[in-house]
């Protein structure tokens, strides 16, 4: 009897540990369900017209949410210390998955980019690679001789990060590349890299960006489009203009859930990369800021978990996962508001996209587990 009770306690322990911070998970699920509602609103017309099923995207996303919830439960139970043993392996697998993108028969090409692979289910390896890099970097930073923060010592983190970036860029997927690069900088910063070294790193990156733009002139046009989208309303500027129309017609309080006009095919990717525009249109400035507030709350709690983690590994892991969520959220909102050059990146938890949702909920599970372990 005693033994059975203790076993039960052990199983449930990660969920009901005294100091566990459940708020990130609660916020993540609130955002995910909210995402379902917004995906329904944003896609019901186009899905009904093009697929013949108004609930097509919602249903797929609901499955993603269900699967993500299971992954969350698993990762929340998983002993974080297990990642220390398997961290490099996980990153290695993610690299292999990224390479599989280029294998004919497995990799799926859409719109000239190879971003998907089909292995039973179809998913984007780059989604996994983001977190795999965070885990591997955390393992390395944890294992390295403590208090050594020489540039040379941090080099492996840089190499892993750049390697991941290079593979994602080869797909090509500029936006995720930028995202991973930013996460890498956060990991290096948390890993103790001197600020002047970080700044030195920024220099070749800027040169790299310039080269990338020079190689593909369409990127330069995109860049210009963000500065003045109305100069090319039918070409590069189109998507941003439509996004601004959506946000603008939202005003203070929005046109109400389900009443978006821009979702009638005017705003492309309204259910995925540009769902925040529909949120802004239907819920207005007030609703959009409320959503941002939820993310800020989630990020604050994530960093608090990092700060109070039991060990440095937990700290790096929680910090990295939170950084991924934060960076992707900021880039997404910056794009739809025309604050940075347009690039396609989903809004964590909310945008349509199964692999993204599953991976992020998995990340939330790890975050929660770190918080459970802190004492």
């Amino acid at each position: 009897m005693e033994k059975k009770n203790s076993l039960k306690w052990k199983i449930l322990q990660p969920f009901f540990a005294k100091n566990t911070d459940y708020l990130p998970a609660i916020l993540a699920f609130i955002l995910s369900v909210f995402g379902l509602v917004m995906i329904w609103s944003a896609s019901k017309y186009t899905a009904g017209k093009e697929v013949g099923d108004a609930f097509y995207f919602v249903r797929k996303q609901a499955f993603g949410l269900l699967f993500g919830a299971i992954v969350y439960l698993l990762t929340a139970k998983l002993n974080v210390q297990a990642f220390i043993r398997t961290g490099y392996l996980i990153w290695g697998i993610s690299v292999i998955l990224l390479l599989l993108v280029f294998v004919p028969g497995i990799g799926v090409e859409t719109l000239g980019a190879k971003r998907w692979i089909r292995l039973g289910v179809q998913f984007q390896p780059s989604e996994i690679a983001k977190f795999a890099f965070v885990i591997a970097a955390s393992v390395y930073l944890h294992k390295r001789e403590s208090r050594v923060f020489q540039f040379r010592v941090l080099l492996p983190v840089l190499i892993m990060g750049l390697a991941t970036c290079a593979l994602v860029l080869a797909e090509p997927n500029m936006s995720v590349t930028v995202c991973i690069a930013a996460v890498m900088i956060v990991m290096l910063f948390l890993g103790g890299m001197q600020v002047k070294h970080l700044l030195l790193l920024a220099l070749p990156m800027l040169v790299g960006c310039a080269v990338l733009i020079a190689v593909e002139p369409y990127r330069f046009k995109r860049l210009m489009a963000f500065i003045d989208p109305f100069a090319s309303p039918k070409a590069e500027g189109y998507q941003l203009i439509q996004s601004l129309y959506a946000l603008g017609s939202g005003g203070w309080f929005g046109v109400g859930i389900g009443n978006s006009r821009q979702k009638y095919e005017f705003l492309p990717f309204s259910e995925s990369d540009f769902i925040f525009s529909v949120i802004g249109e239907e819920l207005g400035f007030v609703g959009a800021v409320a959503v941002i507030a939820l993310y800020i709350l989630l990020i604050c709690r994530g960093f608090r978990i990092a700060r109070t983690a039991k060990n440095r590994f937990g700290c790096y892991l929680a910090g990295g996962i939170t950084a991924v969520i934060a960076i992707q959220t900021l880039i997404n909102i910056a794009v739809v508001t025309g604050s940075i050059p347009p690039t396609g990146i989903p809004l964590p938890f909310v945008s349509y996209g199964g692999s993204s949702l599953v991976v992020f909920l998995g990340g939330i599970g790890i975050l929660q587990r770190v918080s459970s372990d802190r004492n």
Partner: protein
Amino acid sequence: MIKYTVYSLQKRITASLLVIVFAALSLCVRLFWVQVITGKGLTLRAAEQWARDLPVIPERGLITDANGEILAGNRSVYSVYVRPKAVTDLTAVTQLLSDTLELSVDSLTERLSNKSVSEVTVKRRVEKEVADRIIAANCNGVYLSRDNLRVYPYADLLSQVLGFVNVDNRGQSGLESYYDLFLRGTEGKVLTQTDLQGVAISGAEQMYLPAISGMTLTLTIDAKIQMIAERAMEQAMRTHSPIGARCIVMDPNTGAILAMVNKPSLDLNDLPRDDISLLNQYSRNALVVDIYEPGSTFKILTACANIEEYQNGNRNALAPTHIFPDSRTRTVEGSTVKCWSMHLNGNHSHQTLSDALNNSCNPCFVDIALSLGKSTFYQYLSKFGFGKQTGIDFIGEQGGILLAEPMVKNGDLARIGFGQTVAVTPLQLIAATCAAVNGGNYYQPYLVSEISSAEGDTVSRFYPTLKNRAISEKTSQTIRAMLEGVVRDGSGKHAYIEGYRVGGKTGTAQKYENGIIAQGKYISSFVGFFPANAPQYAALIIIDEPEGAHYGSTVAAPYCREIFEQIIALKRMKGDA
């Protein structure tokens, strides 16, 4: 040597958080800018793309005669549009349209497959029954809008004056063109909320901006008199096979045009739009836009000038009792002017001015013109409106050709005296004649008496415009009597109506082609008015290149009588004599 750097992980986490929160707040500020500050402007721009508008074609204004008889009206027809992007079943749509509109499936498929255009006009002017069948089929992507087909109930009646419209119902010629701004009305719109492709969103409100119908033109034309004149000219066409028979009937006391006929003419409902030269030729209102050498009808004005000057005490003017020399010829500056008559057997002898008019004797009018002199004579030509447009409300009016006064030599002056070396429009001639016989008032001829809204409210009313006084009442009275004599006793006797007082003057002019006289080509004309003591109607008949007989007295004058007789019957006018 290993360099150690001590750092606080806690502080770095806090620093990262602060950077992220700062970025998030910046985005909130940006959102505030986009949504709240520029929101209204963006909404307005967005609203433009949310709705598609179909035009609502306004009813083109009616053109009626003086009594409200509709001369130009409209019939409802439909325009069929397709929005290729909104088509869900192309085969069904092409089949439907090819069946109903008799278009080939292949060309339809090609036109409707072009998704880069938002709207294809498949066919215009589709009759209601056909449109109803298309509506009943209820195919996605097919739209209809009501359009107007201009209809002219009287077919070719007054056709050159009315003019016609193009497929867009814009006036192309005549009054349709001159008054197009009033007639065209204002387009309305049906705004439909659609998706990007132009597919209407179900349940969304439609906004309807009604069209404003064009204004109604009331003409001075009397359709009944017009018909009388048209029939007379048709008869002239049959009898004399000229290249044209034209006629103006005018109210001498106002300048109002009562009838304006150009034969041959075309049915305005069935124009040869593909044959531009034919269309141009038949749609010319030659009475206003073409000039001719008037010949003897012009002598009225020479006579007026002389009488007026004589009454004013000008010694150069010839007295009514003045007997003109009998000679058939006058030689002026080396060139010789001959009378049309041989002056044999006592003809054209001992002529007074009255006789000269009766006989239409050229040398007498040479004498008058030369005696009055260039300066005086030109004053009268100007008062009678020659050398300038009358100002009628019609497009393309010509002002005729009158030699500039300093250029005129006596040889020219002598010929102008009897209507040569001068070119006028028929309108100028009748307007001048009206001034001569109505008491001396030169009225500007006009065609439209009123513009009113479709609801019947008067927008603008046109009154007779007295441009100037040409001669005195007394002179006018004298010339009326003389011209009545021409019809009673002289060359105008074919216009004589028993029991009624008709005045008039014949004219026969040789035609010029490329600056030289064209042998055997004449313009026979007659200008008449009645009742001669107080004219109510004036008419100018022009028979262009009659075959066989060519004297105005025999070719043109009978049609003036014909027209006047029928007007008498129409208006139940009582005779004086």
